[in-house]
């Protein structure tokens, strides 16, 4: 019969009469003990040997214990030093005795506490006296330590071992000793002759090319063991959330927009019918940039937007009673929302003039002057979307957003009537957190006012909505601090370990 090399070695080392321990076989065969165990169990499973297990307690000296075997227990050294100073006759100051005993650091406390316990003497008012009749040579603790050091079986008083254990001088451990004995089948097999099959650790190109792989046995691995970690690259969690949003929107027939991050206030705010003295347009809320004013805004468009602000739009329209200047409109700032892109597309300046129906979206960065905290960043992504069609109604708006949020497991959307300068009617969208069940704000929406669409040359309805991507991402990744995700403060470990969303 053929057996793998290591099984054969174990079989040959085992005896039919005496149980041989794993360690003995390991020494004899030169195999690692764990290899011997594996082979022995394999042989047992084939009925060639039996494996007996015995549980035994082993007691080993700790480093400290070994040191005391060499130097003597601290209390014994204290006793002997006392004797040397004649402390059996008259008390001697403790400091002198400790000095004589050359005790140091924690050994001093150890010596003092055990000295008294063992009746080696007494300590009173800082003076030490040794008991003349004490006999440290008969100290069972010392003798057990010595016996252990000699490798003798500590067939000793349990109480002494417990004491040594509590002093941290010995380690007690349970160990299983396995011994292997040949079965009759094992003996028969050996008699009949056993040859070794070759075991290889790696499947090499040579083995494959020569066909030798047919005759070899592959060394077994511990397939349950952990392997060394591998960190591959992965897409940023927030990008993945953005991808998901884009997928959903493309699936719903939306085209993606793009455009400048630094833009004129005209596109960012004036087109949106935000009065120039609106609180959000003060320097506290926007990031104005130190560049020259923007050129290249069509004059007619500028004039129409100004007219809407000053006089309103349509027969019965009223303007804002707010100052308006072209100079301010041309100032360049970082966009506070991506609705500036919507304005550019609706005006036709971003490409072709658009005829209804159209659906457009973007998932792009916006900039807000806010306090940096766990839920607010100075830069974040805004999901922006709009639908242009003849005669859109509030019901269409509700249906579109219900469909969008349903894709993310958010149902039962509530539409709370709201006010925005650029939409009417306007709604804040609330939804239930898929896990906590809390009602959370998940967007702002509405139908663009005619003061917005009119000057842009759009004469049908446009409904729009916006939402912070980070809000969705926090829902889907469970991140509690947005700064873990976004920016140079990010923790690379967090990014590596964030659960993949899809």
């Amino acid at each position, binding site marked *: 019969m053929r057996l793998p090399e290591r099984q054969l070695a174990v079989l040959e080392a085992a005896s039919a009469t005496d149980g041989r321990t794993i360690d003995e076989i390991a020494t004899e065969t030169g195999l690692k003990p764990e290899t011997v165990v594996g082979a022995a169990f394999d042989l047992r499973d084939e009925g060639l040997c039996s494996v007996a297990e015995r549980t035994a307690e082993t007691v080993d000296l700790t480093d400290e214990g070994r040191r005391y075997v060499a130097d003597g227990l601290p209390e014994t050294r204290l006793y002997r030093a006392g004797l040397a100073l004649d402390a059996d006759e008259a008390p001697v100051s403790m400091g002198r005795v400790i000095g004589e005993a050359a005790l140091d650091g924690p050994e001093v406390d150890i010596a003092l506490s055990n000295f008294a316990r063992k009746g080696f003497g007494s300590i009173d008012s800082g003076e030490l006296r040794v008991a003349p009749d004490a006999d440290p040579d008969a100290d069972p603790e010392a003798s057990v330590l010595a016996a252990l050091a000699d490798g003798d079986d500590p067939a000793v008083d349990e109480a002494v071992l417990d004491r040594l254990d509590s002093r941290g001088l010995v380690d007690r451990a349970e160990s299983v000793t396995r011994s292997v004995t040949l079965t009759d089948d094992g003996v028969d097999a050996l008699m009949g002759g056993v040859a070794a099959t070759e075991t290889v650790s790696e499947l090499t190109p040579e083995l494959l090319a020569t066909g030798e792989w047919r005759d070899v046995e592959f060394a077994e691995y511990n397939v349950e063991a952990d392997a060394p970690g591998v960190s591959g690259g992965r897409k940023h969690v927030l990008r993945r959330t953005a991808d998901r949003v884009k997928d959903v*929107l493309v699936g719903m027939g939306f085209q993606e927009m*793009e455009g400048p991050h*630094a833009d004129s206030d005209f596109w960012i705010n004036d087109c949106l019918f935000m009065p120039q003295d609106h609180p959000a347009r003060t320097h506290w809320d926007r990031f104005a940039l130190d*560049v020259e004013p923007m050129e290249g805004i069509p004059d007619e468009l500028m004039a129409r937007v100004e007219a809407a602000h000053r006089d309103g739009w349509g027969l019965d329209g009223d303007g804002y009673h707010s100052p308006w200047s072209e100079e301010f409109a041309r100032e360049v700032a970082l966009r506070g929302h991506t609705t500036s892109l919507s304005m550019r597309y609706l005006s036709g300046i971003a490409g072709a003039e658009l005829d209804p129906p159209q659906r457009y979206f973007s998932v792009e960065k916006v900039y807000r002057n806010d306090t940096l905290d766990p839920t607010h960043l100075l830069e974040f992504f805004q999901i922006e979307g709009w639908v242009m069609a003849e005669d859109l109604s509030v019901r269409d708006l509700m*249906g579109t957003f219900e469909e969008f949020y349903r894709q993310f497991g958010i149902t039962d959307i509530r539409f709370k*009537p709201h006010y*925005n300068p650029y939409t009417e*009617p306007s709604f804040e969208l609330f939804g239930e957190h898929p896990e906590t069940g809390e009602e959370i704000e998940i967007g702002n929406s509405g139908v663009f006012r005619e003061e917005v669409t009119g000057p842009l040359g759009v004469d049908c309805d446009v409904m729009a909505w916006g939402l912070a991507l980070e809000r969705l991402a926090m829902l889907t990744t469970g991140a509690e601090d947005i700064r873990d995700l976004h920016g140079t403060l*990010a923790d690379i470990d967090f990014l590596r370990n964030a659960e993949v969303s899809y």
Partner: protein
Amino acid sequence: MPVVDLDTDELRGLTGRTDTSDEEFKQDLFGLGLEFEGETDDGLLQFEFAPDRLDRLSVEGVARSLRYHYGDDRGVYVPETNDSEWTIEVDESVPDERPYVTGAVIRGVDLDEGALESLIQLQEKLHATMGRGRAKGAIGIHDLAMVKGAPLQEGSEPSITYRGVEPDGDTFVPLDANNELTPDAVLAEHDTGRTYADLVEGLDRYPAIYDELGLFSFPPVINGKRTEVTTGSRELFVELTGTDQWTIDRMCNIICYALSARGATIEAVEVSYADGATAPSEYGAELVRPNFDVDEKAVSHDRIETLLGVDFEREEVVDCFERAGLDASYTLDEDVTYEVAIPPYRVDVLHPLDLVDDVGRAYGFDELEPRYPDVGTVGGRHERSRLEDAVRTSLVGLGFEDLLNFHMTSGPENYDRMNVEPGTGGAAVAEADADSGARPALAGAGIVGGGAPVEITEPYSEEYTQLRTWALPSLVMLLERNTHNAYPQDVAEVGFVAERDDAESTNVAERRHVAGAVARRDASYEAAKGRLQAVCDDFGAELATPRIEHPTFIDGRTAAVEIDGERVGVIGELHPAVLVEHDLEVPVAAFEFDLDALR
């Protein structure tokens, strides 16, 4: 968003709904768009709402809205106004920067502590919202009994005068003070004066209101103590000054409506702009205020139906208007159009669409059944966004951790710590070809990352003062933050960078850069170049790396990234000085180039 503090006992009194509980009010107010926020120390309930219905900034206004909501009131209500006795003369000395004034006289006032509190609150909230922090409109309310109006001529009406005062001119005792102060002294010494000093800063003359006895109010800063309103006041003089007549007139209306709701009588005031006054208002030089004229706007039945997506009976629409506090009549033509009357406390109706919203709210938006719009369009991604994404996929495949860094940074991070000087790269050094006028790719011109910064005009944080001109500093900052984490740390970003560029309409050149950094014990030029080659191969782009010098990198281990013959970036081993500056203890090799090169 504005917040109104409400005493629910007052609300019960003003609505006549004595049995309504606080909880029921909360529910009903939520329906009106007022969201419960919490309680004040004095036990008032605080409600937040969107800044359109500023007539709801007081308990009186909220009570009025509730009465409409309950159906206890219907249609437009306009209080009676008695004929004027008083005149506000506008002198030509009024500062040009604050030309307008309006006002009203209120008689038969009976203010208890709560009502006085409410009035003061309304005043403050109006200042904060419509008044734009008192700059656009400021309200002064005075005890009329303490105002002495000397007729200018025999037989004419009593008057007060809105005029200018020299900053160190006449004195008066302001509220919360005990001594006579000049206007300048008020701005320098009085707490309220200091708070609002910037509103009149730099004016030659300050706005002031005089009566026969002299200066008694210094708008928009502070009133005089002489005319202070107390619970004992029975007659009030309300004056408002500002930069826009319409705005202060509406603010005045909201105040008058609130006092009228408490049983006071409104009496008109004449406003008379002197010939030489800078800007007689758009409504003429002689005004009678408050202006309770009812606006009218027309809205078609069809528009209401299409926008709300509901088929309405005409009477149903009229009913909704009336429950919104509006009046509506319609003609029985084929195209039904409603003539809608809008009360003078409304400041939010700029367009007929706003009336459709009122119908929607009165009808109940909750009642609307969502439907998916039956409109077919084709979806798709933008080409640039697909390219970015494809490059990210390549980088991730090569083992890079994809990063998402801030676009805003600071000069020290973007330049100094990378050993780069601003203005040494990009548009600042790119020279257009003499013949064709075409410029080279900005990303590869001069020192990569050395473009001139686009700076934030008034930054609040030293950490965010400009847009980044390149992405590598962000990557290195991230490595700096992560020295406690395991290596290798291979990181990459496809992201936004920007620099000053007069050739752009916005004067800002915006690009996307591809940056990758390999941080590990064995990081080398070769490691970076191998990965860069792989990315270029993915996109069928031809890569060359001629040797250059760049202060961020080690000389002799630095090259330009040339893709398809154009210089678009840099690659190399980071200079030890840059590594040490970022507390890095492993070598880093990196590259950065313009995404467009892979197109």
